[in-house]
């Protein structure tokens, strides 16, 4: 507020001096004018009385002639004073109002307010350097998970959208260019509680600029950046950007995962979605020959991953010399002729992956007429075409925004979750299916909460106290319901990390040790019940052996005495 106050004071200099001078002259004149008191004696107003009268006159309140009726000379002076003081008074008020509406000053005030609200944040938070489609999804999911975010966005209409949205926590936001380092500093790059910067604009250059700036200003801060071009991604990797997110590569990966291990894919989606949502049952992509229309970044990634799963592909591309495609059918794929040339009747699936939504829809509609049994994968580029894609209802609609948001969440919720998902990919499909059925039986069908707990003095004082006393605490004790020790909380320990050695889905009889990190997944009610066990020694002891330890001095003494 400091600079704004001084900016206002500087602009108000002239009206303030005018008011002081006009008041000074009016007050001194009024005190010099001869008056008559109630005993017909000559009487002069004191300076204080004169100041009082002028004050209520200048502000147009007008109490009348106090304390005695004015003499002719005093009335003459008052007439002059009224015009002399009221005009500067209104001038000053007018200036103040103009100043408050001044766009420059408003901007300064908004920026100042943003800086202050970021500075006063008391919880860990992430900086989002845009509020586009994927960033808004991400912000919503983080807000649901009670992780604070700060937003910088250069377009005012998106900021308005953010302000009108329903969030649990206040999201400080600023309409400014994230490329400017000063704005990053305002957003809290140097804040001790800042846990990372996420830059997801659709412009690779902007993401690169933000990543460079953050890595220079605060090298220890994790940076998640979106990059679609390979050269930019390589550039980002060269100075240590922690996670580079390429939606096309990710989609190719996920498609391969679906073909290869559907269970693993579902697990991945489930753990990184917004808590409370329900996931539609995913389709199993068929094995056989696929037709891929469009060999751009998306098409290349799809072809590469399908071929890795030993699925043969036929490529249709309109400009093969531009995309470096050496064995393909020439055409856009929107006409039946090109599709027939690609032998669409004997294919099992089609991928419409051009960067034009209308063309993509046209491709799949034509293909569908020729072969209604096709498995359809379609790429959606623009969010506003949502209604059209919903109408068509493809087997898989590739939405870059969703994929980016999920990937970011996996890294942001907890480093353990990212590690867990990485390990899950190496497991078999049967393993994943088994875990899913276990999770569904305990947690239910809707998306669960995922969170990590570290067994140390700060985060789990009760557990560390018991461990230090030589008692043994097993993982099972942390799954008992504090209200009834016979019952289980609806949560599942997904992974236990001890000395950086991960243990997938640990057995509940596992004994805990100080320094363990545990990744849990469960219902929100279980997440809120768990701290009771972690923090309260008495309840935890009761959970372990069903004995209530006496709390007060007298009872403890009595117990020792009885024994």
């Amino acid at each position, binding site marked *: 507020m400091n600079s704004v106050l001084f900016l206002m*004071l500087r*602009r*108000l200099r002239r009206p*303030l*001096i005018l008011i002081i*001078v006009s008041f000074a002259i009016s007050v*001194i004149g009024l005190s010099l004018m001869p008056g008559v008191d109630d005993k017909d004696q000559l009487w002069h107003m*004191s*300076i*204080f009385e004169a100041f009082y009268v002028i004050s209520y006159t200048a502000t147009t309140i007008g109490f009348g002639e106090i304390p005695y009726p004015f003499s002719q000379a005093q009335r003459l002076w008052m007439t002059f004073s009224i015009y002399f003081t009221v005009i500067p008074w209104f001038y000053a008020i007018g200036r103040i109002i103009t100043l408050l509406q001044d766009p420059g000053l408003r901007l300064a005030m908004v920026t100042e307010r943003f800086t202050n609200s970021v500075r006063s944040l008391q919880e860990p938070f992430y900086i989002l350097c845009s509020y586009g489609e994927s960033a808004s999804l991400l912000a919503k999911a983080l807000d649901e998970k009670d992780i604070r975010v700060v937003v910088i966005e250069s377009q005012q209409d998106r900021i308005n959208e953010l302000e009108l949205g329903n969030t649990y926590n206040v999201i400080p936001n600023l309409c400014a260019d994230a490329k400017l380092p000063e704005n990053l500093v305002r957003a809290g790059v140097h804040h001790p509680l800042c846990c990372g910067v996420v830059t997801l604009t659709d412009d690779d250059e902007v993401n690169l600029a933000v990543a460079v700036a953050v890595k220079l200003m605060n090298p220890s801060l994790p940076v998640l950046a979106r990059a679609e071009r390979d050269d930019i991604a390589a550039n980002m990797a060269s100075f240590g950007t922690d996670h580079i997110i390429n939606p096309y590569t990710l989609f190719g990966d996920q498609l391969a995962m679906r073909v290869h291990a559907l269970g693993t894919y579902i697990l991945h989606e489930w753990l990184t979605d917004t808590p409370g949502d329900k996931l539609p049952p995913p389709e199993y992509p068929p094995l056989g020959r696929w037709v891929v229309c469009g060999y751009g970044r998306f098409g290349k990634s799809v072809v590469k991953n399908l071929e890795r799963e030993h699925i043969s592909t036929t490529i249709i591309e309109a400009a093969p010399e531009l995309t470096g495609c050496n064995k393909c059918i020439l055409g856009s794929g929107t006409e039946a002729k090109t599709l027939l040339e690609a032998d669409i009747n004997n294919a099992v699936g089609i991928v419409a992956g051009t960067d034009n939504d209308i063309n993509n829809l046209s491709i799949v509609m034509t293909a569908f007429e020729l072969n209604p049994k096709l498995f359809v994968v379609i790429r959606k580029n623009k969010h506003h075409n949502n209604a059209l894609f919903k109408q068509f209802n493809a087997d898989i609609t590739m939405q870059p925004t969703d994929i980016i948001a999920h990937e970011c969440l996996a890294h942001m919720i907890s480093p353990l979750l990212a590690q867990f998902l990485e390990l899950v990919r190496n497991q078999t499909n049967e393993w994943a299916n088994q875990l899913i059925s276990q999770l569904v039986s305990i947690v239910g069908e809707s998306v669960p909460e995922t969170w990590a707990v570290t067994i140390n003095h700060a985060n789990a004082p009760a557990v560390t106290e018991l461990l230090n006393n030589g008692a043994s605490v097993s993982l099972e004790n942390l799954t008992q319901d504090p209200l009834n020790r016979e019952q289980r909380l609806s949560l599942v320990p997904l992974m236990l990390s001890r000395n950086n050695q991960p243990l997938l889905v640990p057995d509940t009889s596992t004994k805990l040790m100080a320094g363990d990190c545990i990744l849990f997944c469960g219902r929100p009610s279980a997440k809120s019940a768990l701290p009771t066990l972690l923090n309260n020694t008495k309840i935890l002891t009761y959970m372990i052996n069903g004995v209530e330890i006496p709390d007060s001095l007298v009872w403890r003494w009595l117990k020792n005495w009885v024994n």
Partner: protein
Amino acid sequence: MNLEKVVFGFFIVLAMTLNFGFFIGDIDNPTHHHVYELYAAIIVSLIATVLKFGDRTHVGAILLSTSLAADLQLIAAAILWAALSGKMDESSLTVYIVSLSGGALMANFVSVILLISETISQRR
């Protein structure tokens, strides 16, 4: 020569001289201290304060704070005078008022010293 600087210096020095004029004299003798002189000192001090608004330099900040200190004491003296005149012994009231204005004089004095030192350090 810069008219703005002339006006600025004039008001700062005038605030001090008027303050000094009111302050000088026997501390408990009401006839040595005229009400209009205090009034003029307050007005000039207020104007000097407003003139100092918005200067972001370090010296500017200190100048503003000395001026605010002077205003505070002078206005306190005026309020005492308006509130207590006729209610207590005139010579002891005068002692209060004059000692407060003496404090303000110190602040004004610092202000003038700062002004002089800044002027001397000016190379152009």
